[in-house]
Each structure stands twice: as structure tokens, then as C-alpha cells.
């Protein structure tokens, strides 16, 4: 940046660039090794080494005159990071949302500082990427905070909608883009810059308000993607190739996950963001009570499970809420002891973030080769004696296959209704999160097991003789 010192320190500058090059390669390897559980931990080491190298290399930067505050901030950040790395596994979705917010905060603040340092001489391209950095960063910051608040249940999980909501939201985004365009033309008009930061901050809040808990896997993935893209934009502003690469990797990762999630719900991004899914359908709520269902006690459920050869357990968000995963593990153990083949069917959007169920079950020490993806296990349901559903609802709703009028028609589901016996652990007959009635509950082979998931599974385990 300062031409006179450039030649003098060109040597160390090259060293830094080589370090960044190595760090970039390590980051790519880190993600590559994540492809399988057997190599995934190498991935972390590669990432950590890359990160330490990159930070150490940056500290060699010739322009740095003061290390005190850098070190203080690094220590403070570490102090906040350690407890955030030790949260309970059930709190992982909100922790992830919170860390998206922190990442976006960093990018937004750096973008803001860079603008005020550079104005009024900001080239058009620079100002364009800087605007992108600040807009994406700002909306990701507040949007992720909102998502974290909903997941932590500080904020209501049900979507909040009002008339003209989409017009307000799109209007806000439009104004932010208009301000950005104006600033690209007139980078000296710094009185408008607060709008460029402020409007996306408000937009982020409004964007997540109408989104319900069931859509969180898609929203978290999208926010992940935005956080990555804003970091890549920051890389353009700072002319840092390392940052461009890391941001592009994070951005594409988030995008792939968003695509997988929205496919698993048979919905488009636009529909997730503007569709306000998961509203209660008041008309349907009253009519359901009349239809008969069969229910069973823990004793009866235990007898059926003990007599089965093949059991598939379908976990959902309800299992996470009831913290039932450890009891489920006991059930798995006592059934396995009796020679029953027990597997777990994992729907891509079960839970509140991609892979949520896998992490919870792995925490409860259930071997990962027992966790089977939807496409792989769906063909096995006709040969399954018992499908036991714990806290999952919409992902098992056969109306998605058959009822064209259902809001979830076309969504890929777990074909549990093809199992010989279906058992559903559920608190009551209240419709699930999306407020959609589930015809599965009225089938002849379905038994409803009413109660708290943790207690009910505990009851079954006691009956099987493996309880504590």
C-alpha cells in the first residue's frame, strides 16, 4: 500500500504470500477430508494448521505498528470462543447461527472501517464489492442473531407474518441496493454510508421474522452461504487471495447445503424466504378429533419390538426437544441384545440444521453405520417389522406422496407407512409444527404411543429388561 516501503520489505511480503498459499491448500484439504468420518479429524488438523499459519503470517505484515490491541483482541476472542466450543450438542443449531452472526459482524466492521479510510477515493469496482460485503454481512449478522434467538426459544419459533410483509422486505433490500449504486457513483457521499450498513441490518431481522422452526435447516445453510460470500467480497476489497478462496469455499458449502435442504422439502429458496411456511391452518384443527386412532402402552410396545426382526427408528426434532437420545441408545442396546436389527432413518431436514440428528445420535454413542439416509433406507420399509417414530412428523406424512392438496405434497418422505407396524411416540394428537394433519396416524397398522419421548422410551426399555 505504501510504495516506498514496498521494495524494502518485499522479501517478507513474499514470505507472507507463500504462507497464505500453503494455508489455502490446507483449507481445501481440510474440507476434502471431511468427506468421510474416518478421515474427518485430519480435516480439522489441516484447518487448524492453516489457520495458525495464516494468522502468524499476518502478524509479520510490514504495516503493523502496534501489536498490543491485536493480542488483547485475540485473547478476548479466544475467551469467548472456548465456551462456544463447549456448548451441549442439543444447542449446536443456535451456536452455529450465532457463529454465522459473529463471522458476518467481523466482515461488516472491517468493510465499514475500510470505507471510511478510503473515501473519497474509492474506485467503482472496489465500492461495488465493498457494498456487497457490507450488505451481505449486515443482513447475515442480524438474520443469524434472529435465527439463533428462535432456535434458543428466546423468540417465538412460529413464523410471524403481517400484510404486505414481502413488499416491505423487498422494498428495504431495494433501497439498500439503490444506496449502494449511488455510492459506487459518488463514493465521496459518505453521509449515505450509514444507510448502506443500517438498512441490511433491519432487513436481516425482517427476513427471518416470518420463517418458522421447520425451515431453519434451509435458512441456516443460506446464512452460511451469505457469510461466505461476504468474506469473499472482503477478500476483493483487501486484495487477499486467501480470503477470496476461504469465502468461496464457505459460500459454496452453504449453497450446496441449502440446495440439499430445499430439495428435501420440495421447496424453492424464494418459497422458504417469502412463503411463511408452517402457519397453523385453523380450519383443519377442529376436524381431526373425530377420527379414531389406536394407542398402546409401553408394555405393549416393548412386546411388539421384542418380537420384531427388523426395526427402523425415525428420529425428529421432538427427540432433540425431549433430550431422549440417550434413552434411545438404551433402547437400541436392549433390542440389539435380543438380536433385533435396529437402524435409524435420517431425513435430510429432520431437526433444525443439516445433519442435526446424526450429531445427537452420535453423541449418544450410536454407531454411525446404523444411521441410514432417506434414499438408502426407503426401499427397506416393506421388509421392516416396526418403524418407531420419535418426535418426527411431517417427514413421515404419506400425504406428501398422495394428497395433491396437501401443503407438503411432493416433499420426499420416509416411507414408514410401508412397514408392517408403525409406532409413533407423540405428546398428543396436536398437529405438528407445520400444522398439517398426518394420515399416518389413522392407518390400521399404526399405534400411537402418547407421552413424553424420553419417558416413553425409558418405559419401553424397562419392559425389555434392560433399564436402569
Amino acid at each position: 500500500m505504501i510504495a516506498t516501503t514496498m521494495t524494502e520489505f518485499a522479501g517478507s511480503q513474499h514470505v507472507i504470500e507463500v504462507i497464505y498459499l500453503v494455508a489455502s491448500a490446507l483449507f481445501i484439504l481440510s474440507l476434502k477430508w471431511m468427506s468421510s468420518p474416518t478421515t474427518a479429524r485430519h480435516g480439522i488438523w489441516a484447518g487448524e494448521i492453516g489457520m495458525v499459519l495464516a494468522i502468524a503470517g499476518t502478524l509479520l505484515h510490514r504495516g503493523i505498528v502496534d501489536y498490543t490491541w491485536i493480542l488483547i483482541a485475540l485473547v478476548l476472542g479466544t475467551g469467548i470462543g472456548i465456551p462456544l466450543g463447549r456448548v451441549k450438542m442439543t444447542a449446536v443449531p443456535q451456536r452455529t447461527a450465532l457463529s454465522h452472526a459473529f463471522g458476518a459482524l467481523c466482515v461488516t466492521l472491517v468493510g465499514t472501517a475500510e470505507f471510511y479510510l478510503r473515501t473519497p477515493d474509492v474506485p467503482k469496482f472496489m465500492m461495488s464489492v465493498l457494498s456487497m460485503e457490507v450488505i451481505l454481512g449486515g443482513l447475515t449478522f442480524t438474520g443469524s442473531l434472529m435465527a439463533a434467538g428462535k432456535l434458543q426459544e428466546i423468540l417465538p419459533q412460529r413464523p410471524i407474518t403481517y400484510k404486505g410483509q414481502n413488499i416491505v422486505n423487498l422494498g428495504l433490500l431495494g433501497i439498500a441496493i439503490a444506496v449502494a449504486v449511488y455510492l459506487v457513483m459518488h463514493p465521496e457521499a459518505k453521509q449515505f454510508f450509514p444507510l448502506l450498513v443500517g438498512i441490511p441490518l433491519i432487513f436481516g431481522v425482517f427476513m427471518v421474522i416470518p420463517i418458522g422452526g421447520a425451515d431453519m435447516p434451509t435458512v441456516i445453510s443460506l446464512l452460511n452461504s451469505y457469510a461466505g460470500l461476504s468474506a469473499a467480497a472482503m477478500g476483493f476489497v483487501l486484495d487477499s487471495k486467501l480470503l477470496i478462496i476461504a469465502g468461496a469455499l464457505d459460500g459454496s458449502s452453504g449453497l450446496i447445503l441449502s440446495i440439499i435442504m430445499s430439495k428435501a422439502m420440495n421447496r424453492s429458496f424464494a418459497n422458504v424466504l417469502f412463503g411463511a411456511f408452517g402457519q397453523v391452518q385453523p380450519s383443519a384443527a377442529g376436524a381431526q378429533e373425530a377420527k379414531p386412532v389406536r394407542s398402546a402402552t409401553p408394555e405393549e410396545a416393548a412386546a411388539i419390538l421384542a418380537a420384531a426382526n427388523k426395526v427402523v427408528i425415525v428420529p425428529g426434532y421432538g427427540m432433540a426437544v425431549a433430550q431422549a437420545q440417550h434413552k434411545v441408545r438404551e433402547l437400541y442396546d436392549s433390542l440389539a441384545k435380543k438380536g433385533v436389527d435396529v437402524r435409524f432413518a435420517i431425513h435430510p431436514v429432520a431437526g433444525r440444521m443439516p445433519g442435526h440428528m446424526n450429531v445427537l445420535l452420535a453423541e449418544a454413542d450410536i454407531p454411525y453405520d446404523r444411521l441410514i439416509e432417506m434414499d438408502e433406507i426407503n426401499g427397506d420399509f416393506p421388509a421392516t417389522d416396526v418403524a418407531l417414530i420419535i418426535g418426527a412428523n411431517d417427514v413421515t406424512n404419506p400425504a406428501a406422496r398422495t394428497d395433491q392438496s396437501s401443503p407438503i405434497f411432493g416433499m420426499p418422505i420416509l416411507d414408514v407407512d410401508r412397514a408392517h407396524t408403525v409406532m409413533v411416540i407423540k405428546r398428543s394428537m396436536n398437529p405438528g409444527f407445520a400444522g398439517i394433519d398426518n394420515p399416518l396416524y389413522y392407518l390400521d397398522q399404526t399405534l400411537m404411543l402418547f407421552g413424553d419421548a424420553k419417558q416413553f422410551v425409558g418405559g419401553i426399555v424397562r419392559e425389555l429388561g434392560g433399564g436402569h
Partner: protein
Amino acid sequence: MNSNLIDGLFIFMLACFIGFEVIRHVSPLLHTPLMSLTNALDAIAVVGAIVLVGEHRSNFAAVLGVIAIIAATSNVVGGFLITDRMLKMFKSSRPTK
């Protein structure tokens, strides 16, 4: 400046393709740790904040930079810690049986 910009766009495009190819092969089993790992890697933005604070070109920039370093560092530390904890939990049944 201009050639840097073009270089940057090429790098961005290639990195996006690499990202898509690499991440497409990540097992859905590991999607949660994947997200916490990319989050930690993304916090490499801390290098921009470090330079901002270290160069101390204005008090305003330095203050924003300090907050930015704190936010990003907490992601680096917390992200790697929790990813590691999660991956330690994934065990196969094969070695024991």
C-alpha cells in the same frame, strides 16, 4: 489494480468449483460438523481485521478492528473445538464387533 481484480475473479471462480466438487462428496452424516468447520475456516477474515488494528490508520478503524478480531477469533476457536468434539463422537460399530 485491474489485473489484480481479474486475478481475483479467476481465483474466486476456481475456488467455487473446488468448493462444489469437494463438498458434494461430504456424507450427509457430517453436515453439521461440515458447517461448523467452514465457519471456522471462514473466520480467516480475522487477518483483515488484524492488519486494520495493526496499521492503526484511525482510531475509529482500530476500534472496529478490535471488535472484528474478537468476533472472528471466537469463531476460529469455538468452531474448531466443537467440530473436533462432534467428530470424536462419530464411532463405527465395526471395530467393536
